């Protein structure tokens, strides 16, 4: 920035010198042709050429001064600015690339998220199907067990009912037989029973 300020000062000095030369040229022109009716010793063309020559010299000096003092600063400033712009553009490009990378990353993640969601849904569906099949199998097995238990219980109840029926029939028959025996057994029968016991007791 100090170089830029030096350049501006040099440019100001050069501009002031040009203005002084121009003022000198106009003063000279006024001195030779300012009084009406006066004749010029050298004529109007020589004055113009002189002015042009001064102007050319002044401009040349101006260019030299500019080239010597202002141009390095301007060039340096422009180079610096160009580098800054280039750096800014590079940073912007890098930021753009990073943003692009982030966008691609997010796009990839979004795609992965969709895939994950699809996979999870599929896993859930398969799990639900497996659970349903398992529950169905367990229910079928439970139903088979219950049916088998019921059949076993029915058979058991039937067998028990048969046993109880036979036992009841036997009890009634024995009871009936006892009544018959009590009613019809005579003393002779009782004596015969004792005699038969005595005769057969050795075989017991």
């Amino acid at each position, binding site marked *: 920035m100090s170089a830029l300020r030096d350049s501006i000062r040099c440019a100001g000095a050069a501009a002031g010198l040009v203005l002084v030369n121009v003022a000198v040229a106009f003063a000279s022109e006024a001195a030779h042709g300012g009084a009406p009716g006066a004749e010029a010793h050298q004529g109007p063309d020589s004055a113009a050429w002189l002015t042009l020559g001064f102007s050319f010299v002044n401009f040349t000096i101006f260019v030299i001064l500019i080239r010597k003092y202002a141009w390095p600063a301007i060039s340096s400033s422009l180079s610096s600015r160009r580098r800054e712009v280039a750096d800014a553009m590079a940073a912007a490009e890098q930021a753009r690339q990073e943003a692009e990378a982030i966008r691609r990353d997010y796009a990839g993640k979004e795609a992965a998220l969709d895939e994950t969601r699809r996979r999870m849904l599929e896993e859930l569906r398969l799990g639900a199907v497996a659970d349903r099949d398992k529950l169905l199998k367990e229910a079928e097995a439970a139903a088979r067990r219950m049916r088998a238990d019921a059949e076993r219980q029915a058979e058991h109840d039937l067998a028990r009912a048969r046993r109880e029926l036979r036992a009841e029939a036997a009890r009634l028959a024995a009871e009936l037989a006892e009544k018959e025996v*009590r009613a019809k057994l005579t003393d002779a029968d009782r004596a015969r*029973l004792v005699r038969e016991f005595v005769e057969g007791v050795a075989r017991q």
Partner: protein
Amino acid sequence: MESGDTEQVGAGISELADAVASLDAGSLAPGLLTPAQREQLAVSLVARIGKDSLLGKFVGVLAANDRLEQMPAIRDNFSKLEDAAAGRVRVHVRSATALTDTERSSLRSKFETITGRRVIDTVEVDADLLGGVTVEAEGRVYDGSVRTQLARLERDMAG
């Protein structure tokens, strides 16, 4: 020990066993009575036969060891030993009706043949047998009653 002594001791044991059996069930269980109470009880039990007699000393030993409750079982075992020593066996006959002397004699004779020993029988009338007799000898029951035959019939029918 002479034969007469054995019978005397047997009679004494039987008398003591009856006395013990007449007490409340469990009143002589081991641990219930103090040694002094047991000694007093033993003295009262052997008062008739004398505490210095053979049986009196035996009862004293039972009291000292808190085994007076075993008196009925001792009587039963002594009776068996006495019968075995005398060559006899006791049978218990149950009959639906009273047996005639002839029937009772034939039963005795039959069981003397079976056991090979002289039979001493006791007879009990039990109308619930309906007919026939049962005889218990040497821990075995010979059953010829109508009641048992009806029960067997009922069991066979019931399967």
